């Protein structure tokens, strides 16, 4: 039955001329899930049929099972050897079903516009993507505890509030491209012995020299490329992945920046270890800012 289902999908692909697996499932509203033989299909209002994988309910014996409980199986081999890393973002397509075969969710399939950053994605999907290469497609059996993070920006839900549907999910994921994050510094935890330390607790190391002699003052605005990591290696922010620098007003920047940038000259790139007290503190009032010590790579482009 499993092979028959896949055969049906290939026929559809041929008849429509579409190359994307998702497009094969591009039918209209699903309203009526039912069991046909051992497969769950959904009949849309227009009478079209969406077929869930025959193994949607549980991974087959040949699926790889990781220590987290994630199960996965390669459906199509990819190209190259580069895998997404924790701080990377990717373009990917996916289809997700509940284990009863009802369709749960699909990605947007146009223009490779479904961008996922692994640090913010569905836990099990991010774990699988780290194993994949571009153009590879895998089926994932994601246990409930690896699906959705306990997160709600309004705060804690009340018991009577509707809970999101829980349960295991089965994904077909295709990795389309990888947007590589800047390399994570090896010495996040503490600056190397060769770093220069200031009396405030700031430490820095020049990564690329420049020949200028003019240093920015606190009254200046500076155009910079920068990347920031938390001490656990999580990339908090970067202008490098989008390749677009930022204009920063030094006077109102965090204290660590106010000390760091005037140490630089235009064209220079340096790494700064900024203690929490000079960054956003250990308990930032803005919950979107990172707590604790931070490491910044900063390239000073211009001074205004």
């Amino acid at each position, binding site marked *: 039955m499993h092979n028959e289902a896949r055969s049906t999908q290939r026929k559809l692909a041929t008849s429509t001329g579409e190359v994307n697996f998702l497009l094969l499932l591009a039918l*209209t509203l699903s309203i009526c899930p039912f069991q046909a033989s051992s497969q769950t299909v959904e009949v849309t209002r227009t009478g079209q049929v969406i077929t869930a994988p025959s193994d949607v309910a549980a991974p087959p014996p040949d699926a790889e099972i990781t220590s987290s409980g994630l199960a996965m199986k390669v459906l199509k081999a990819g190209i190259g050897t580069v895998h997404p890393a924790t701080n990377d973002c990717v373009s990917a397509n996916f289809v997700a079903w509940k284990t009863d075969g009802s369709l749960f969710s699909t990605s947007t399939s146009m223009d490779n516009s479904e961008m996922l950053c692994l640090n913010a994605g569905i836990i099990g999907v991010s774990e699988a993507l780290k194993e994949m290469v571009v153009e590879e497609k895998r089926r994932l059996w994601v246990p409930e505890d690896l699906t959705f993070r306990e997160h709600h920006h309004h705060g804690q839900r009340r018991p009577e509030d509707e809970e999101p549907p829980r349960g295991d999910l089965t994904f077909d994921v295709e990795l389309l491209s990888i947007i590589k994050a800047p390399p994570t510094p090896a010495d996040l935890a503490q600056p190397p012995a060769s770093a220069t330390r200031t009396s405030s607790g700031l430490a820095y190391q020049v990564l690329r020299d420049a020949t200028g002699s003019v240093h920015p003052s606190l009254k200046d605005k500076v155009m910079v490329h920068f990347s920031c990591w938390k001490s656990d290696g999580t990339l908090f922010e970067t202008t490098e992945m989008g390749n677009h620098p930022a204009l920063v007003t030094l006077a109102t920047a965090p204290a660590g920046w106010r000390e760091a940038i005037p140490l630089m000259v235009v064209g220079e790139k340096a790494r700064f270890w900024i203690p929490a007290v000079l960054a956003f503190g250990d308990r930032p009032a803005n919950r979107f800012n990172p707590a604790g010590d931070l490491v910044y790579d900063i390239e000073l482009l211009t001074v205004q």
Partner: protein
Amino acid sequence: MSRRAPSVNSLFRFFALWTCFLAALNADAAKRAEVLTRGYNNQRTAANLVEKKLKPSKVDPKQFGKLFMLPVDDQIYAGLLYAADLEIAGHKHNVLFVATVNNSVYAFDADHFGPPLWHRNFNGSGRPTRNTEVGQACRIYNDFIGNIGIVGTPVIGPDRTMYFVTRMVEGDATVQRLRAIDITTGADRPNSPQIIQATVSGTGDDTNGSVVRFNPLTENQRPALALADGTVYIGWASFCDTRPYHGWMISYDASTLKQIGVFNSSPNGNMAGIWMSGAGPVLDQSGNLYFSTGNGSYDGTTGFGESLVKVQAKTLHPLDFFTPSNFNTLNDFDLDFGTQGPTMLPGTNHLLVGGKEGKMYLLDAGKLGGQSPGDIQISQVVQAVDPTVRPTLTHHMHNAIPVWESPEGLNVYVWGESDFLRVYRFDPSTHKFATKAVATGSILAPSGMPGGMMTISSNGSHSGTGILWAALPRAGDANQMTVPGALYAYDAENLKLLWSSTAAGDDPLNFAKGSPPIVANGKVYMASISNFVSVYGERKGAPKFQNLALRGKATGSRPCDPTQTADKAFNGSTENGPSDKWCSSDANPFLQVDLGRVSEIGRVVVEHAGAGGDDFNLNTRDFNIQVSADGQTFSTAASVKGNIQSITTHDIPPTEARYVRLTVTTSQATQAPPANIYELQVFPAADLNQASSHGGR
């Protein structure tokens, strides 16, 4: 010498010339900008295309800045409105209309500082709802701080009637009313007000088994009101997703205020609120409405959570919808689709709308397409907010997407959370957008919500006239607290930064997250949650100094370092960071200003640590504001405990005073020193006088 009687020909010629002159005058008046509805028009383009005075070459720190501030009685969440050449009490004015969460509406002369032309408060024997009374899903609902009265942007009709919804607690009951007033006087129109009530058949939240009833306590009238063809449209959502609630859209006859149609987005389920960050629904040429919904029940039949919904004019019968194929994911991740209202692209039948994923959806208004795996039934989806800049944060889009037909093509502007301002261009040959931004701004928004609230001014599509105006937090997350704001002006053709409000004297105070700036006839109006509207324009002379404490003689407790002296709190500036504030580590420190003469004062504004870029945890927690006429005997005019805000506004009873003193009892949230004050401003009571204040239900 005899005088010849004028010939018929010359009389005719004179009459023709006079007619032409009057026609020219009328044409000139017709070209004056008005803002009678949110986003300038029912397509919600957020573009004023008849702006002749403001152009990129005129907007720089030397020529442009704040002209004056208009004080009001409470915070401003509703959008500002503007009518040109309005006759009030025998004189013509350009008039700015401001609605506050204290259920007040003001009419100000938009060009000159002065008391309101009229002011009306609608509390009557009731009072506005308070944020502690709603939104328990957040424990305390801090999306608002204090009163929650008028929130949705009013709308003004062709007969100069303004429609809006007040929200009051009367006894134990919360009552919402639709009101219609004459904008020349503030007086009620016939049949106004009407209590908001509605029912639909359904088995969802708040049902009695078969009928769902409008719940005035949990329903938040957040989106802008709309008006077309004699019908007023009003939408509702929730406070912090606190159930029971639904998305409601209700239509009323603009003359009789009788209810015409009712639409409920989840009658057999729950939630699916219509809030759109305060934006208004789009109306097409047939009068049909388009609006978006947030988290909630979806079945594509009666449940339309996470959807763009099209309903019929007047009756509100559902006609069509679009629901993203990942709606389950959006629900589960609290990634509401409906954080933006749609925008109709000029010259097309396309709608553009974004949501919390930072994607913008291009839809055919004639065929929205329902829900389909992969979203392939719609025109395009573009990841418009770049998630790679801050990969672990949110990338929401709020309010609505402004659009401008630039000399180079149709531009749309996106400033999502934690990202740069970006402009995308529509290709009329493919009817799609280039997926890569054609220009990107240089300012990275602070971490958190809500991104930029934007408007455009231009003289048509002429090169060298387009300006993108954006209000943005200058620090902090505006979702669950108030944060300092900033106004930026960009060249709309290339996103070159022209001007920002960071210079001394240009501070707009707290960011009004529900109220984007508006532009009309050479001036920019920016609301704040500090109970002021700031008016910006071409500076032809010294700006009006309303702050009595500006450059007053300052004294205070011993400074933290020699640069952080008391005078820094009265220099009109927060722009220079820590060297631009008063700081003292003394026990119970004080800061004092001598106004130079005894004045009747009525308002004090304090800019704490966060206003200058410091961590908000350093904001002054407990403090007293004291006043004195002689510098010897002080009385306490305001006492504050537990403050967490960066900018606080304190209205005090009109008091004759020459000296104003701030005494700090607890410097910071951590109860540790030092105290940090960037600015302390004092305003005369006369500025706060209300022209007229006839209240009533």
